[in-house]
């Protein structure tokens, strides 16, 4: 089946893409470029780099702008998916939703209206098991945003590895944060992994952090051969 993956370049959309590639053909990566940094639906930090990550994965990207206003952005998403059907002949849509009923139900409704299959291959996955799977399978995932207490500055720009997962597990136990950031606590970007034909190298980035909100803003990056 030809599939379009909703793609931000963060770990969830990249790993959903990997799972889709194991069983089906990924025809395009659909990126919603939201003008609203607090979008209800779409990952926004460093979204401008999603194109470079799509290039690294070697799948065509379909960029679609949205103002990012609640509910109106769903109409934009529906238009983007319809364009993916027209341009790439996709028969189904893949999302990286894990726990968010808000996101999953809305994409399901759009797919139903457009008579498309809808896949959520990370749905209800145990978040710590998932993080360990990413490391085990060789994904290089960097934390590009933290948005919750008690995530300190050391998390911004950190690579998700064994010790970082242990820290997140401890914070989950003590503060009930979602260790994979499903509640919006963490945003990530993926620089390399098994589905990458080339890897992304960050050349210049700036860290911003204040009062448990921080971002790693990538200024320069390039593709390099593996």
């Amino acid at each position, binding site marked *: 089946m030809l599939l379009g993956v909703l793609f931000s370049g963060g770990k969830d959309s990249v790993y959903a893409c990997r*799972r889709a590639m194991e069983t*089906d053909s990924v025809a395009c990566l659909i990126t919603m470029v939201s003008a609203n940094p607090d979008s209800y639906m779409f990952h926004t930090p460093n979204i401008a780099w999603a194109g470079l990550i799509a290039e690294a994965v070697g799948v065509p990207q379909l960029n679609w702008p949205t103002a990012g206003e609640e509910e109106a952005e769903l109409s934009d998403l529906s238009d983007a998916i319809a364009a993916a059907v027209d341009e790439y002949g996709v028969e189904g849509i*893949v999302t990286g939703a894990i726990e968010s*009923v808000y996101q999953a*139900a809305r994409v*399901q*409704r759009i797919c139903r209206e457009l008579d498309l299959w809808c896949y959520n291959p*990370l*749905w*209800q996955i145990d978040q710590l098991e998932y993080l360990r799977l990413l490391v085990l399978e060789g994904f290089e995932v960097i934390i590009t945003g933290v948005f919750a207490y008690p995530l300190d500055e050391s998390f911004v720009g950190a690579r998700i590895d064994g010790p970082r997962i242990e820290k997140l597990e401890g914070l989950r136990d003590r503060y009930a944060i979602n260790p994979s950031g499903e509640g919006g606590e963490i945003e990530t970007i993926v620089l390399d992994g098994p589905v990458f034909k080339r890897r992304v190298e960050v050349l210049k980035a700036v860290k911003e952090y204040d009062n448990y909100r921080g971002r790693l803003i990538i200024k320069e990056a390039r593709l390099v051969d593996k």
Partner: protein
Amino acid sequence: MILLVDLCFRPRSLSRHEFVDPIAGILRRAGSEYEVVHFTEVTEDEILRADRIVLCGTALKDDLYARRIDLFSWIREFPKPVLGICAGMQVIAALFGGEVVPQPKIGLDAIDIFKETPLLGTPRRIEGYHLHNFGVALPPGFEIVAGRPGEVEAIKHADRPVYGIIFHPEVRNRWIVERFDALPLNEIR
């Protein structure tokens, strides 16, 4: 051993991560032994070894299972607990002479449990995640446990531990799978 039956349109499909793996995860974390098998590949040996059966859900556009109800006829004679989730509930209804009817619903909604059962417990209101194009009309020999005629949420066979729920317990109601896992094998009512 709990036999998780994958009802998706083909073995090892992308959908299995969404509709089978979450149920398997609940059982794994509960320390229960389970095996996953696609509905087109169930063997007699697996049926004989199974202590209970879960028929998992499918994607909205997936309806192959509904066109191959003949492959599920063994469930009629299975003497131990059976739980059909969403598509699985539709299979149970079809097997026992009920009807599968158009009844699309996506998202969270209130569910009124009005009959006490070992699976869902005492009457009360809960919230559950729905993802279905079809519901069921009550099959003969079954009773409605939750919902109402025209919008049946959960059913149970009157004399056997055979249950169907149209909503997805893996979302916010994992306790239902855990309770099913703990039902006595000789449970009658």
